[in-house]
């Protein structure tokens, strides 16, 4: 789960990271009455779950209360390039001599967290690391023993950071690591960090991602989930525990297993008719029950673009009788004028077939192979489009 800038800063601040004085506007009434004591100019920052906000005009500088109000009004509750702006952060403009980059992120290849820092800030650190490997320093962290000060200091050394800043640099890294561990983050990033005489290191912008699998033990983060701007469909998917990715085509892929779902997507794309493509990726995961299938199909049917569904299940953990029951329930409940091509195999597949056949629903069609399923779905869409 991605966090908004102001959320990331709030959490980092709890662990000792300095952040600029700020004020969050979530409601237009707040700005009408707004008169907080800032020294102008201040930053006006639209909160969206994406980087590169400057190019969307979501980061501006205001020189007066008038300007603040005007800018907030222009940003708040708008949608910029598909990104909704639920809140605007007013923030002291920090003027630092130098700007730095620091992050703690999971290094999948090393199977450890890694501390990454650079004297260069802004932009994509991975790209920058490739072009300027000398200017980005990394230290792998043993998750059993944590980030050692000597490691943070060796990063400072490698970057030729002025020596009087080393202790503060270590403290910043330690604070970030504690925050990373405490909140089950997969990424904690401050970019840029400024250094000022007043505050020392201070976070100008911050990003944080929290492991979805750990949200059950992160009540504070979980309580922020409702603030996320999600479509009704996304909310339904979250509740149902299915993995949902909306795409632009007409064929919904309801599958148990990400790789198989992607395979069906790939096969649909390569089918030849460029106008017929997947409508969504819906991974119902392992061991789904009938209820989850109903919810997944509800999501599929709720998309107006959807003209056909491929429901391909190869049961291992998943039991095909549960799947079949769910499909039948969904049709009984919603009775959509949409064909679902069903491929059932593996655990209890025969039971599943029986349930489908006994239900005797016209829009349900069986397929014996992936190729056949894709072909039947494309034909169904073709029939409706023509």
């Amino acid at each position, binding site marked *: 789960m991605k966090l908004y800038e102001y959320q990331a800063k709030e959490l980092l601040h709890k662990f000792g990271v300095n952040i600029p004085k700020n004020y969050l506007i979530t409601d237009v009434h707040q700005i009408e009455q707004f008169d907080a004591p800032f020294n102008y100019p201040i930053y006006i920052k639209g909160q969206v779950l994406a980087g590169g906000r400057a190019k969307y005009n979501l980061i501006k500088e205001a020189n007066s209360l008038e300007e603040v109000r005007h800018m907030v009004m222009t940003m708040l509750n708008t949608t910029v390039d598909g990104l909704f702006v639920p809140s605007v952060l007013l923030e002291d403009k920090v003027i630092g001599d130098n700007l730095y980059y620091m992050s703690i992120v999971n290094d999948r290849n090393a199977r450890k967290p890694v501390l990454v820092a650079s004297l260069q800030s802004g932009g994509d650190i991975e790209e920058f690391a490739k072009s300027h490997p000398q200017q980005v320093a990394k230290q792998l962290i043993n*998750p059993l023993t944590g980030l050692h000060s000597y490691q943070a200091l060796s990063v400072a050394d490698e970057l030729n950071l002025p020596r009087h800043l080393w202790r503060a640099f270590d403290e910043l890294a330690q604070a970030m690591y504690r925050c990373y561990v405490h909140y089950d983050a997969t990424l904690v990033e401050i970019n840029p960090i400024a250094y000022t005489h007043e505050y020392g290191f201070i976070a100008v912008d911050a990003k944080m991602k929290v492991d979805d699998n750990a949200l059950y033990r992160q009540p504070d983060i979980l309580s922020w989930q409702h603030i996320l701007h999600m479509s009704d469909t996304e909310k339904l998917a979250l509740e149902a525990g299915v993995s949902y990715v909306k795409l632009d085509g007409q064929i919904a892929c309801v599958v148990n297993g990400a790789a198989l779902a992607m*395979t069906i997507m790939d096969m649909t794309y*390569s089918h030849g008719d460029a106008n017929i493509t997947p409508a969504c990726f819906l991974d119902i995961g392992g061991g789904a029950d009938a209820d989850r299938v109903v919810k997944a199909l509800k999501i599929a049917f709720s998309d107006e673009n959807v003209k056909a569904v491929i429901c391909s299940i190869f049961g291992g953990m998943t039991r095909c009788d549960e799947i079949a029951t769910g499909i039948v329930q969904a049709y009984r409940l919603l009775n959509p004028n949409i064909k679902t091509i069903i491929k059932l*195999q593996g655990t209890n597949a025969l039971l599943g077939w029986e349930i489908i056949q006994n239900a005797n629903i016209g829009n349900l069609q069986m397929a014996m192979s992936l190729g056949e399923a894709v072909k039947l779905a494309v034909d169904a869409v073709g029939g409706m489009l023509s």
Partner: protein
Amino acid sequence: MSLFINASTRLIVQGITGKHGSFHTQEMLKYGTMVVGGVTHGRGGEWVHGVPVFDSVKAAMYATDANTSVIFVPPRFATDAIFEAIDAQVPLIVCITEGIPVYDMMRVYAYLQTSNSRLIGPNCPGIITPPNAKVGIIPSEIVRPGNIGIVSKSGALTYEVMQSLFQAGFGVSTCVGVGADPILGTSMVEVLEAFDDDPETEKVILLGEIGGRAEIRAAEYIQRYMTKPVVGFIAGKTAPNGVRMGHAGAIVEDGDSTAIAKIQALTRAGARIAEQPEHIADLLR
């Protein structure tokens, strides 16, 4: 010979009294796997499908002389279950559970390095060595003994491939699902190494997907060391960037983690890559 499991595998099931644990215990028994015990804390003394339940892995190991454990407990207890198995010195631990936090798995992985246990998974379908050893959830009716080794990240896709092999008349030496999480106990490369050493295996199928660099590393290994032919398939050519596609690990985060990059690396390494799963059998001939 075979990989990791065989006719002398003596298995305990952690989470045997749960819905999935119980169901797949029965499936494994049916296939012929020696399931010698199960573990559910607080349920010791019960029986599940004729298998005795113990209160701890240690007690189960002591009573049954098992050499392998499979984990079916829910994600918030699975980390503890893996630690318990490692501390009980189970040589082979197969974790089926999906949804374990990454931080937990990084800790498990670091701890594993100080032990003699091998972990397969988590978030994997397990291992099957036909005709009679199965640890995990791979459907057994679609596989017969043979000389094709399979290493895969995924569940359902693997079953699709296994079925098309079955229909095409091929048999399997061992199929290993390494899992699709960002942090795994055993990597694709380690399984390729084992297949290369396994006299039962003549050709190897590698099934990958977007996310991570496991397939790139596999390509490096194949190019440098692998003596047996490899046929591959990579899912997710059309997956959008930066979006998690179901699996915690299935996300394109940099150039190396795209399907295209992986297909190119494997092709350069000499592997033959199928356009779609149903073509794999053709490439094996």
